[in-house]
């Protein structure tokens, strides 16, 4: 039996124990992972593992309970079902609690590459070693890496329920990343290079090393900037981390709980006409691609903001029931231990036409924000306030000038969306909070604070 059928068979046994009048959903994960870290020309660590687990939801009289187990023996599965029932008994009843009706998801075979299991461990080790060596070979102000790593996962996910949901898929992921350290006059800078693919053969070691080296070295000699209202160019990494915060305010959960500044504004202008924000769970280029979401609802494409106008919010089955709409397929799972939540999949701003050079030229003088720090505390999806730490470089006359450190960028989410002047043409997904689409953004109306 293949791993997908094997896992479905386990889930079937749980669902078959449902009592009359109750809904039961079982979600299972079976994952094989390898992690390699290299340092100083040697393998620092090599880790391999297989983890399996099942999470069970029970719905009874409008009450939902959850339990999980990493032990897949019959008795442990029965115990998990009993625990989920007991948990449901104390949960508050809610008419919007529901297990989704079965809707067949179109397969998405591109998320897995066949033959992944045949990649020898030695090949994975070599990728980490080559990456570390490539950074070290640069020499000079480049001190080496803090971390050079290869990581992969072959994941089988399956779901079955009393409402007829029954499906499974397989996914493969391979990533290399390096955190590069550079030093000048006793001050150290660090930056990431990163590549994510479906198979190790597609990973580009030289490009990752070069990216980390360029990003770390160009920050050398950074000083605090003068405080100013100034145009800001957000680097793809910075864009990706800020999108995560904006996304938090665009879930229906945030809206229903009064925690979104976008509540009640569907159909209104919430940003400049450049702002088209899309969530697409079936986009193969995105790290969060999957045929169905954490409840087995088919993944899809949702335009949240189009030409600056708010079109809607992200939904899972619960929030959709509450609003009387259809789920957008955004139920999220952080593994088998978590009940379905609500999160973006691959979220991105529709790219524009400008190359980096053209965007810089349009900016003229600006702060190029390469790193954002403290985004989770410093950007508030309820109040809309943004105040985050930043490092980067000044852009003068359309080109990189002096580096900047210990700066903060202040403003508001509405101000940022209103002030979006241009989106670069190159889109690159990064693994921040699902999959956030990084692009170059040119924004007016933010404050840069330093000394």
């Amino acid at each position: 039996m293949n791993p997908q059928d094997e896992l479905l068979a386990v889930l079937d046994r749980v669902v078959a124990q449902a009592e009359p009048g109750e809904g039961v959903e079982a979600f299972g994960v079976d994952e094989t992972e390898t992690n390699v870290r290299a340092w100083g020309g040697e393998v620092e660590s090599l880790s391999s593992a297989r983890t399996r687990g099942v999470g069970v939801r029970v719905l009874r009289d409008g009450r939902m309970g959850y339990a999980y187990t990493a032990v897949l023996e019959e008795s442990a599965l029965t115990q998990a079902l009993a625990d989920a029932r007991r948990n449901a008994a104390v949960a508050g009843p809610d008419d919007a609690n529901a297990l989704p009706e079965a809707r067949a998801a179109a397969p998405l075979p591109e998320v897995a590459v066949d033959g992944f299991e045949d990649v020898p461990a030695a090949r994975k080790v070599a990728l980490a070693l080559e990456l570390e060596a490539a950074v070290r070979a640069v020499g000079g102000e480049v001190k080496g890496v803090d971390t050079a790593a290869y990581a992969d996962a072959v994941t089988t996910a399956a779901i079955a329920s009393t409402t007829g949901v029954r499906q499974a898929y397989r996914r493969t992921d391979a990533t290399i990343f390096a955190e590069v350290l550079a030093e000048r006059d006793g001050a150290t800078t660090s930056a990431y290079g990163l590549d994510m693919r479906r198979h190790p053969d597609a990973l580009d070691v030289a490009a990752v090393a070069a990216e980390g080296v360029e990003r770390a070295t160009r920050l050398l000699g950074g000083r605090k900037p003068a405080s100013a209202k100034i145009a800001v160019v957000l680097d793809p990494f910075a864009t990706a981390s800020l999108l995560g915060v904006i996304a938090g305010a665009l879930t229906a959960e945030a809206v229903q709980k009064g925690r979104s500044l976008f509540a009640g504004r569907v159909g209104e202008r919430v940003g400049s006409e450049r702002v088209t924000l899309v969530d697409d769970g079936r986009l193969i280029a995105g790290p969060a691609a999957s045929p169905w979401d954490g409840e087995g609802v088919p993944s899809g494409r949702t335009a949240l903001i189009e030409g600056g106008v708010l079109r809607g919010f992200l939904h899972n089955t619960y929030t959709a029931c509450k609003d009387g709409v259809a789920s957008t397929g955004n139920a999220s799972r952080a593994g088998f231990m978590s009940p379905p939540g609500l999160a973006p999949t691959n979220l991105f701003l529709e790219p524009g036409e400008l190359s980096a050079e053209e965007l810089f030229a349009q900016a003229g003088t600006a702060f190029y924000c390469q790193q954002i720090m403290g985004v989770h505390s410093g950007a508030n999806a309820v109040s809309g306030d943004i105040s985050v730490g930043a490092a980067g470089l000044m852009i003068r006359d359309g080109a990189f000038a002096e580096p900047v450190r210990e700066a903060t960028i202040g403003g508001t989410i509405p101000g940022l969306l209103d002030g979006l002047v241009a989106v670069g043409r190159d889109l690159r997904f990064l693994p921040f909070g699902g999959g956030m689409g990084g692009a170059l953004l040119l924004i007016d109306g933010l404050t840069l604070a330093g000394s």
Partner: protein
Amino acid sequence: MSELTLDDADVRAVLQAALSTGGDFAEIYAEDKVSRALRLDDGRVEDVISGLDRGAGIRVIQGRRTAYAYTNVLTRAALVDAAKAAAAGLPGEAGTQVADLTDRRPPLEHPPARDPLAVDQHGLVAIVQRAEEAARAVGPEVRQVTIMYSDVRQSVFLANSEGHRSTEQRVRTRLVGQAVAARGDVIQTGFEGPGASQGHELFDTHSPERIGRLAAERAVTMLDSRPAPSGEFTVVLAPGSGGVLFHEACGHGMEADIVAKGASVYAGKRGQKLGTALLTGVDDATVPGGWGSFGFDDEGTPAQRTVLFEQGVCTDYMSDRLRAAELGIARSGNARRQGYANLPIPRMTNSYILPGADDPAEILRSVKRGVWCESLGGGQVDPASGDFVFGIAVAHWVENGELAYPIRGANLVGDGPTVLARIDALGTDFDIRQGVCGKDGQNVPAGLGNPTVRIDRITIGGTA
């Protein structure tokens, strides 16, 4: 449920298999974790979750090389398979023998006085409801209240090829209150979330009512806030609020793995005076009931107290077995892991700035113009440069030694060594907070603590 333990013969077989390719040290870490969580949101009990996680990780070390494998099947056959998988990461021949296993007792234990598992789900619902009622009672501006209860009982079995064998139970309980207050267009949030290596005796000192009320009061206070200014100011950190800054900006750089790679601003600085002579900072895994306390660390070294900075001088790094050997220092008992799926790495336990000799009230009075910070939000630090950023959750503008008005949207920005040098007063008071620290993808509970701290000058990034 009894303590998790594995049969001696099984353990020997697993360790022997792990050493079959030339490893000079092998270890098995088995864990059984029973967790419960419950959330009261908007008056409704939701996300009632319970679960069992169980598994074992097998680690083999050869020189500086580590191989690791884990499984969540705890049969002898599955464990030996995992040991062989780990051993396959090393290319050599068996040499090291497994020593006779001897039981070690943890030097201190943190047994719960009132076992959380004695309280069933209905009892937990009553606890979160008490917290919610108290939050609602704060005023009509309180619009949303979320109360989250969680407990975990972790049983750890640890054995290694040097003959160590131990079992330990760790029980932790936490109750978190979050409130949203609104007036007109202004929306603000408040938080209070105590936790401890304790059972329900936690609620003797932190009643559910107090937790709900404090979260709501903080949200309501911030409704009157004005946008924070930007620039360099004197900042006073209230007791408990500055521990996260010490943790992020000073603690991480004192972790031996970061030091060993030269990626820390504190690397090579032992014995040097970096901070003001007022400053003594420790990491202490032995604090009774401390959020980050334990008996043995996650590779069997007894819990201890490590002085990181003594009167401003950089003293000891926090180390695990591997990095202690690499740096030629003693093991400090700071090896921690999120669970059986993770390699142990040097981590903080409870990192505290110790109290000083100054009257806290006098410290506030000494500030002409500045910021009094009651609670910081999350922070982030680049250990290489020491640069950090912290959100300020609750703060007041200070004029002539008095709190003038609350301010919002502010960040503290700076770097660790500079802040250490600019601390110019430490209060006689002290308080703690609890955090969840993330590093290399692993989350562990971390205790935080500080007295009233005055920082002469630091950058505030505001929105005004």
